[in-house]
């Protein structure tokens, strides 16, 4: 169990804001840490790992206090990263270039048996004597993952571990993460923006906005059950509204796709080019309506 009430003032694009993490995370699950860039996700993970010192608050992991401090004072308890049982997979992999794959793992702990077992789990047994410079992105990521597990951490922190990989490699690594979570029982916190990744991997989503956890729910609730009447709905932007005989046609960009939606004159009155809209279906016909402020939308991940 991870219990945090850590706080830290961060410098954001629109001025300083307070990162306020008041949350309990159960043992053994996979929790997604989502939110737009600059919302404090990475700092949240770094504070758990001991790489960034919070301003104040408390961090307790499985009954042991890792950090306890009051604002403006020297922390009463602040374990060093070396003393915390945390495995970290960094965004840039952070493999030691002068060591082989096996050397990277044995640097963490001289337990050769465990190193071989972990390399087997991430399918890297054949490449153990290769230096990181000769590995692909996916292979590097798996070395980083295996290395982070060498010291049998209770918590595994992953900062956008799969964002640089192609879809096929992502799927393989997602399966490996699920396997690692089940077989080793390690609590995983993963920073990700990818909704399908969150849905596939995670049992909980923490959505950060300007330093606050604004949504704390299950991926299913967040993505599927949010509007019972409208399951098939996408956010887009109107590029053009065209007059076609008696009706109007709106061209809407949804991600990289362009769709045409037929709208009637009443609907057309409230819409103009550049508006954010929700395209959904009603009785099998696409419908369009204006995006409401505060409504959930994938760009917030």
């Amino acid at each position, binding site marked *: 169990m991870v219990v945090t009430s850590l706080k830290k003032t961060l410098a954001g694009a629109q001025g300083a804001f307070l990162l306020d993490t008041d949350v309990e995370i159960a043992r053994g699950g996979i929790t997604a840490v989502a939110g737009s860039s600059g919302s404090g996700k990475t700092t949240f993970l770094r504070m758990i790992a001991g790489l960034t010192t919070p301003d104040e608050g408390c961090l307790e992991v499985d009954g042991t206090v890792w950090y306890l401090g009051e604002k403006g004072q020297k922390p009463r308890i602040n374990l060093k990263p*070396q003393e915390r049982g945390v495995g970290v997979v960094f965004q840039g992999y952070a493999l030691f270039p002068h060591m082989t794959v096996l050397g990277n793992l044995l640097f963490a702990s001289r337990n050769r048996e465990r190193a071989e077992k972990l390399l087997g789990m991430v399918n890297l047994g054949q490449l153990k004597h290769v230096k990181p410079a000769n590995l692909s992105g996916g292979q590097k990521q798996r070395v980083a993952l295996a290395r982070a597990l060498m010291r049998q951490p209770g918590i595994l922190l992953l900062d956008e571990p799969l964002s640089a990989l192609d879809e096929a490699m992502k799927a393989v690594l997602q399966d490996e993460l699920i396997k690692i979570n089940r077989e080793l029982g390690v609590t995983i916190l993963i920073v990700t923006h990818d909704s399908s990744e969150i849905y596939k991997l995670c049992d909980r989503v923490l959505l950060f906005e300007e330093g606050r956890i604004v949504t704390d729910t299950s991926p299913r609730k967040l993505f599927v059950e949010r509007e019972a009447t409208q399951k098939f709905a996408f956010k887009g932007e109107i590029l053009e509204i065209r007059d076609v005989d008696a009706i109007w046609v709106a061209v809407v960009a949804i991600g990289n796709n362009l769709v045409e939606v037929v709208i009637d004159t009443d609907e057309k009155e409230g819409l103009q080019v550049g508006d954010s809209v929700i395209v959904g279906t009603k009785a099998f016909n696409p419908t369009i309506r204006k995006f409401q402020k505060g409504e959930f939308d994938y760009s917030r991940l």
Partner: protein
Amino acid sequence: MNPGFDIEPFLLSFRLAGITTFLLFLICVPLAWKLARSRSWFKPIIEALVSMPVVLPPTVLGFYLLILLSGRSPFGMMLKQQFDIDLVFTFEGILIASCVYSFPFMLQPLQSGIEQISDELVEASYTLGKSRFQTLFHVILPNIKPSILTGLIITFAHTVGEFGVVLMVGGSIQGETRVASIAIFEMVELMDYRTAHIYSMLLIAFSFVVLMTVYLINHHHRKTG
């Protein structure tokens, strides 16, 4: 004094350069790491201070070191009274002077090498349970080998090539402070141009070999990257 070729000034120069390089490496590795990872306001002050020997005339440095080490300064007086050590016109005296004079030539390559290493690599080592000391030895130093070699070679060569500081602090005492560059000066004064030529050509050859080695290492490192 019988003029003519004598190997002793060269041996003295190499001994002085060897010990200077060794001492500066020990001092500069931790300092370079501290400076490379520091964002403090005093970092530019330290950097400017230790770089001063690059731009100052060696005579200025030598003059103040002479005063500092002599029995007239509080420091020199303390050394004399407490430990009965007299540093002026001794090998130990020019060793201290050389360390001050060659300091930036060791510090700068080490610091820029360490600055190239990403923070993530250091943090990864910490999260794998390694102390700062272990991280320095097993992660940082193995990854800045070209910088270390550059620092060692340039410091050594620069110390062999110094003249003004040694002359001010050490004078020219045979077997104690008369290093190669000073021996050349003396030969010229004695109008023994033949010996001066031999000494000078040896130093030119030495400098060329040293610099070529540095460029070869850098070239090789860029290619294998």
